[in-house]
């Protein structure tokens, strides 16, 4: 980038001036402006500075005004006019411009600023008026914080120059080579690494937890399985024993059961016998209740029917109208006892008959009986029904008793047949074993359920572990990323250090070369150093002491300019260098020649505008400079308020 044109209106002594910076073919991009002190030379630098940053380069009092005094004197009170500086910038992409304008009104004879505006028009004709946008654009041309390395006041190029500029310079260099981006990247990479470290640590905790769960469940499961195996073996063993015992006891009754059974049967037999006694007694009572019977016209069938109501050995007293008889059943045959009565029996019968004859009840009963055979028969039938019923009961009881007796007899015989105690012991063992087996089977079922449950739980844990295995892969990936991040951070840190060091070294080398080409005196100077803060030091050859502060004003100026040029070259700034009074204070033809040589050299690749006092340069160096310059102007300003650029060599104004 270079300045193509500068247009000044009402800026201090310049009422209306334009300078076109045209690089002549075969010439350097070098422009020289001569001016007598106080005629507007430094003000030209002020005008550029004001256009760029809204303030002048030189420190002046507040009561001064930039408004042209000649124009002001022409203006009427209350009349308005403006100050304007326009800088056209030429670059590979086109022409852009910076224009600053301040409006003034004449009041009480003075110029009072009423408004100020700045605009930037880019290569595409887009106009920017926002202050921040314009500042950004201007910074792209000449960065404000290091503007002193572009717009240089020869008077101030002393050793203090660096102490005032080094910090801003360090920041500028950092930003220009994008070390600020590297810094930011390091912060961001560290931030991400911190997060990843945390993720990694958290993953580790989860793994520990699930592994401890696995160990616990695995332990429980193995224990349950062992227990189940033991129980299963015990069950098999018991089954075998039981089978063996059963085989042994095949056909052998359970004696204890038989004993119990026989006892039960005996109890029942006893009960049946008691019941039989009871029934027999009851039958007697019935017989006594209904008998003795008086049978009329009784035939043998009727007698036999009667006989059916009695039991073997039982007597049935029967009274007929002719005789008193006793019917009895002996060995299934009816015996009419009356026919074989012995003396005793006869007597008994006589007694009975006597009793009977005396018994009014019997008499009455007899009379009653006599009154109707039907009634007798009815009563007889009632008797027979009851007798038949009780006989049936008695017969059944007797059958039962017989059966019981038979069964008891059978069991007794069986019990006699076997070694009862041995059998009892075996049967008891069989029962115990079977009970134990049942218990074990129940335990086994319970354990099987438990094992199933634990296996499910274990399966779940294995699934989790599988997930964690995937997570482990993820963790490995995470670890790789963390390691990679560490390497990247180290690389970025090294990059930052080394780039900065490279720049420092390159500036040192170039500044030393330039400085040496101008003022190097092998007798005095050893080397030039640029420290980490981009401060410059020069060392004495003999003592190796820092002699920077012992440099003369001229040497300091050369050092500063050499450094500035080195900076431009290393950072590759393509904007111009404008120096006011670069030679003032430098004595010695050789030094001046070297200075001129340096400007000519750098103007090969960079625009250089030199503002020189009219007596600053003479002789051969001046001729050399003017020969190489594309344009040389002289400021003509006889009144002090109407400066003009008059071409001396080439150039247009």
């Amino acid at each position, binding site marked *: 980038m270079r300045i193509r044109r500068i247009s000044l209106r009402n800026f201090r002594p310049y009422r209306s001036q334009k300078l076109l910076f045209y690089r002549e073919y075969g010439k350097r991009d070098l422009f020289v402006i001569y001016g007598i002190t106080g005629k507007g030379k430094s003000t030209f630098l002020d005008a550029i500075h004001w256009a760029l940053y809204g303030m002048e380069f030189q420190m002046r009092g507040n009561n001064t005004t930039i408004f042209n005094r000649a124009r002001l004197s022409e203006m009427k009170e209350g009349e308005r006019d403006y100050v304007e500086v326009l800088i056209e910038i030429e670059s590979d992409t086109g022409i852009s411009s910076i224009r600053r304008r301040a409006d003034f009104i004449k009041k009480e004879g003075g110029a009072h600023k009423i408004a100020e505006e700045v605009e930037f028009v880019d290569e595409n004709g887009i106009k920017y008026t926002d202050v921040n946008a314009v500042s950004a654009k201007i910074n792209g041309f000449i960065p404000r914080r290091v503007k002193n390395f572009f717009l240089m006041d020869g008077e101030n190029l002393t050793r203090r120059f660096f102490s005032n500029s080094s910090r801003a310079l360090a920041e500028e260099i950092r930003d220009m080579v*994008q070390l600020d981006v590297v810094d*930011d990247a390091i912060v961001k990479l560290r931030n*991400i690494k911190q997060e990843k470290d945390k993720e990694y640590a958290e993953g580790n905790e989860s793994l520990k937890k699930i592994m401890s769960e696995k160990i616990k469940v695995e332990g429980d499961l193995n224990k349950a399985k062992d227990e189940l195996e033991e129980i299963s073996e015990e069950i098999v063993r018991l089954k075998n024993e039981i089978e063996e015992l059963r085989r042994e006891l095949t056909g052998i009754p359970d004696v204890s059961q038989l004993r119990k059974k026989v006892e039960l049967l005996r109890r029942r037999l006893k009960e049946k016998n008691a019941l039989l006694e009871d029934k027999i007694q009851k039958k007697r009572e019935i017989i006594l209740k209904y008998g003795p019977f008086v049978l009329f016209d009784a035939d043998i069938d009727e007698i036999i029917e009667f006989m059916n109501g009695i039991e073997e050995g039982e007597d049935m007293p029967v009274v007929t109208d002719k005789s008193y008889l006793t019917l009895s059943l002996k060995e299934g045959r009816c015996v009419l006892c009356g026919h074989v009565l012995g003396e005793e029996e006869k007597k008994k019968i006589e007694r009975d008959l006597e009793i009977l004859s005396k018994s009014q009840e019997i008499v009455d009963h007899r009379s009653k009986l006599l009154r109707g055979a039907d009634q007798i028969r009815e009563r007889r039938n009632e008797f027979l029904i009851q007798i038949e019923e009780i006989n049936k009961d008695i017969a059944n009881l007797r059958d039962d008793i017989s059966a019981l007796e038979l069964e008891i007899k059978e069991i007794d015989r069986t019990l006699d047949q076997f070694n009862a105690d041995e059998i009892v012991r075996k049967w008891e063992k069989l029962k115990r074993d079977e009970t134990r087996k049942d218990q074990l089977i129940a335990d086994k079922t319970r354990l099987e359920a438990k094992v199933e449950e634990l296996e499910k739980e274990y399966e779940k844990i294995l699934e989790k572990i599988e997930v964690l295995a995937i997570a482990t892969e993820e963790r490995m990936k995470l670890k790789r990323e963390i390691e*990679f991040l560490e390497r990247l951070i180290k*690389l970025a840190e090294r*990059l930052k250090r080394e780039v900065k060091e490279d720049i420092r070294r390159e500036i040192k080398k170039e500044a030393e070369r330039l400085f040496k080409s101008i003022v190097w005196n092998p007798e005095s100077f050893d080397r030039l150093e640029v420290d980490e803060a981009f401060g410059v030091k020069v060392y004495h050859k003999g003592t190796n002491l820092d002699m920077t502060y012992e440099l003369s004003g001229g040497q300091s100026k050369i050092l500063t300019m050499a450094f500035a040029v080195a900076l431009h070259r290393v950072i590759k700034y393509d904007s111009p260098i404008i120096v006011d009074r670069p030679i003032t204070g430098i004595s010695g033809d050789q030094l001046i020649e070297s200075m001129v040589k340096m400007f000519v050299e750098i103007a090969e690749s960079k625009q250089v505008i030199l503002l020189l006092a009219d007596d600053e340069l003479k002789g051969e160096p001046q001729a050399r400079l003017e020969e190489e310059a594309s344009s040389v102007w002289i400021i003509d300003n006889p009144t002090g308020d109407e400066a003009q650029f008059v071409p001396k060599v080439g150039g247009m104004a």
Partner: protein
Amino acid sequence: MVPVIGIRIRSKIRELAETEAEEEALREVLSVVLEYRQNVEKRVQWKRKIRQIIAKYAEADEK
């Protein structure tokens, strides 16, 4: 358009990086940071982008 890191930094990265993955990754990370700094109004999702770059090149570096 993806912002480009200056030639000086790029050359230095090439010189210092031990692997191609390192070189590519740092260059891309710097581009993301630069893009983030240049687009103040429209914030770039730098964290997501840098994480992606790390994942991509950490794996590539492993191979």
